[in-house]
């Protein structure tokens, strides 16, 4: 009987979805998302927010379908400039921007992008799968994440710093401390005091992630390539031919990475306090930690890319889990979704499944459709991108610089964004020329706020007693993992130093 009811709802849902208006809106939003995601400085959240006034005049389903399509496409499209220009299109692509760019320089741009595409599609589908099958269960776990759990999660994330860079651990830690330092700029979230703002109104808002990311990754690379290589031609690209012929290669070699990335991505996405960008960083570090050839990372190796690019798209589906089950947004895109849902007279929460089951199933179908639509549209985008990559550097570099400036401006809607971008570009250039990796710094900026906020909130709640960090079951589990990782790292660091000393003495 229950099966019969479900299949009836699914049938109704299919009729709802395969309507020319719904499909048209989804298609148009997908193309829109592709553009927005590919332009650095415009995020998936921004793309969804731009849709809000339009969804106002739409029935619920196309309105939600538009947001789904736009966000899925934007997260994938962020990979394009990341690989071509070392300029992550959205923060979710920052974790593997360097690795992708290294591949492009080796002439493997198409292999990289097609892997990104396939993994994004498949990872997205895994996320949707969990959303469809296990949403209530996962949401129940996610709701038990309080500040104590987030504290340990951000500690785990921060520990990834040493893994995401191939350089010496001490250099990675130095870079991480820079990042955490920058994350302290702005108004103290607990006492309301302005810190390191040098009386500037703009700095009171803190260091914006996106302009600093564009500066650190793209501008520094721009400066280096024009200083070192001159205005030489783009590296010759290997022809991949049919983009999807390497599907089997990736599937057979890296299926474990894909699975781990998608699962972790879904789980992190489902947490209300962490989204696709954090998922990608942690997945990249996981890939390296469990890899048989960690020494290849950072030199244009596919393994980490597979894991993290699957992860960030899976996180999208994951973020809908608490949004639909509790009405609690899993990320900033689902925050908009919840607003749209209410405006359409629908109430996210347990009742949405019983009150409007057709619509929920229709939404799931659109999720799947949007991910499948990514294949042809993404393929076109890659072809276009590859052609763009072949333009002479002398023409490309000024264009990139202009995009950097525009993207940074777009984020803050003021020239402050451009100043930040320039500052981080020069800083990153100096750091890299002294062999200090910039990845850990960006990780510090991403996680610094969460780390501080969760620590302070926890201490307030626990009345200043540290034991609070170990009392709750999930927190205790996470703390054990974190502390183990830290001891291993410390052991390696110390033994590395003693080895060096031994060598020096010998």
């Amino acid at each position, binding site marked *: 009987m229950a099966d019969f009811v479900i299949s009836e709802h699914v049938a109704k849902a299919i009729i709802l979805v395969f309507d020319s208006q719904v499909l048209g809106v989804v298609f148009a939003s997908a193309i829109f998302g592709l553009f927005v995601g590919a332009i650095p400085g415009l995020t998936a959240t921004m793309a969804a927010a731009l849709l809000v006034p339009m969804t106002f005049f739409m029935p619920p389903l196309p309105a939600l379908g538009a947001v789904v399509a736009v966000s899925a496409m934007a997260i994938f499209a962020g990979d394009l400039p990341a690989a071509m220009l070392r300029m992550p299109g959205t923060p979710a692509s920052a974790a593997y921007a360097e690795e992708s760019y290294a591949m492009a320089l080796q002439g493997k741009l198409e292999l990289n992008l097609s892997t990104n595409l396939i993994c994004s599609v498949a990872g997205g589908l895994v996320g949707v799968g969990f959303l469809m099958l296990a949403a209530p269960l996962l949401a129940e776990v996610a709701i038990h*994440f309080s500040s104590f759990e987030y504290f340990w999660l951000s500690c785990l994330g921060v520990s990834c710093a040493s893994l995401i860079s191939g350089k010496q651990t001490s250099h990675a830690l130095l870079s991480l401390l820079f990042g955490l330092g920058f994350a302290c700029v702005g108004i103290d979230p607990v006492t309301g005091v302005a810190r390191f703002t040098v009386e500037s109104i703009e700095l009171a808002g803190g260091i914006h992630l996106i302009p600093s990311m564009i500066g650190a990754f793209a501008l520094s690379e721009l400066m280096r390539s024009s200083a070192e290589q001159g205005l030489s031609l783009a590296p010759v690209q290997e022809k991949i031919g049919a983009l999807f012929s390497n599907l089997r290669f990736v599937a057979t070699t890296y299926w474990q990475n894909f699975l781990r990335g998608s699962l972790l991505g879904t789980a992190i996405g489902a947490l209300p306090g962490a989204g696709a960008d954090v998922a990608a960083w942690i997945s990249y570090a996981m890939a390296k930690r469990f890899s048989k050839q960690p020494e290849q990372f950072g030199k244009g190796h596919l393994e980490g890319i597979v894991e993290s690019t699957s992860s960030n798209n899976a996180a999208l589906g994951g973020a809908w889990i608490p949004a639909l089950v509790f009405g609690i947004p899993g990320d900033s895109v689902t925050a908009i979704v919840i607003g749209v849902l209410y405006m359409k007279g629908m*109430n996210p929460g347990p009742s949405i499944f019983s009150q409007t089951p057709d619509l929920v199933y229709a939404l799931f179908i659109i999720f799947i459709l949007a991910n499948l639509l990514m294949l042809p549209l993404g393929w076109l985008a890659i072809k276009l991108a590859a052609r763009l990559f072949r333009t002479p550097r002398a023409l490309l570099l000024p264009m990139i610089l202009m995009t950097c400036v525009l993207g940074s401006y777009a984020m803050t809607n003021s020239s402050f964004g451009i100043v930040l971008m320039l500052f981080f570009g020069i800083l990153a250039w100096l750091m890299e020329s002294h062999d200090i990796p910039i990845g850990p710094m960006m990780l510090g900026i991403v996680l610094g706020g969460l780390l501080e906020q969760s620590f302070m909130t926890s201490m307030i709640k626990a009345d200043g007693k540290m034991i609070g960090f170990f009392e709750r079951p999930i927190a205790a589990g996470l703390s054990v993992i974190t502390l183990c990782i830290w001891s291993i790292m410390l052991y390696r660091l110390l033994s590395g130093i003693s080895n060096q000393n031994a060598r020096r003495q010998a």
Partner: protein
Amino acid sequence: MRNSIRRLKHRVAKLTMAVMFGCLATQAMAAWPSDQPINMIIAYAPGGGTDIVARSLVPFIEKHLGDGAKINILNRPGAGGGIGFAAIANAAADGYTIGFINTPPIITIPIERQAAWTLSSFDYLGNIVDDPGTFCVHQDSPIKSLAELQAFAKSNPKKVTIGSTGVGSDDHLAMLMFERAAGVALTHVPFKGSSETRTAITGKHITVAAINVGEALQYLKSGSPLRCLGQMTAQRMSMAPDWPTFKEQGFAFEMASLRGIAAPRGLPSAVRERLARAIERAANDPMFKEAAERAFAPVRFLAPNAYEAEIRAGDSQFRQLWKDMPWTDR
């Protein structure tokens, strides 16, 4: 054949001329608000409560301004709204920059620290949303009224944790006013937004959630296990007729978050009047009202003078509170 082509060419030329002329003419004629888009500054990130209200309202303001007016939304988030408010205050007063200002931060930031605006930096165009505060506990909590909360907090000083949307937020100030009125001491837990507060109260990580009535109704509707202890209003709202006001329960204070539209001080009077009129009509547009109601954003339109008066009244109230119990470390 040749003839017809010539005729076509002629026609095209004529048409081009007409279009060019037309453009010139409209350009010469065009004036505010149709010659360039109006920027509306939102001091919060895309997707937040203010942002969504603004984005739903904008099409209606455009409609009632007429003449093909176009409004762009610019998000200038950061520093609890401080960056965006400063941008509105310091823009040129030419009618091309307007923005949403929110109480209490528009009032409290200049009290707390050196700010780039005062309340005299703005031309107030109209209030849109008025969302009063409330205190909610988890359904499993033994506390059933404000009196019980007071009694519990009295016997357990500093043990009651209360989540707010940040230092100096309306929720934080409401907590302070309750402490003052009830003679108790609570422990403040600042979060970054009301959805974090909500997660915390749902997971029983805090004792009390200080949120707004609209938010509470929204959360209740989506099945959050909350019990709301009252509303900080003068009279019960039509949205929540069953919740006693704080005043009825013996705690004589009101607190709300007003979200309205302002422009830099000194707009040309014709521009100011036209904007205010368009905003009033947009706020009263049934289609907007319906959507806002569904989104649990309580619309309470206030005309410019009444709006400014209410903000000034809030200012003297908060200055007194700042004297009694300053809410940031100085």
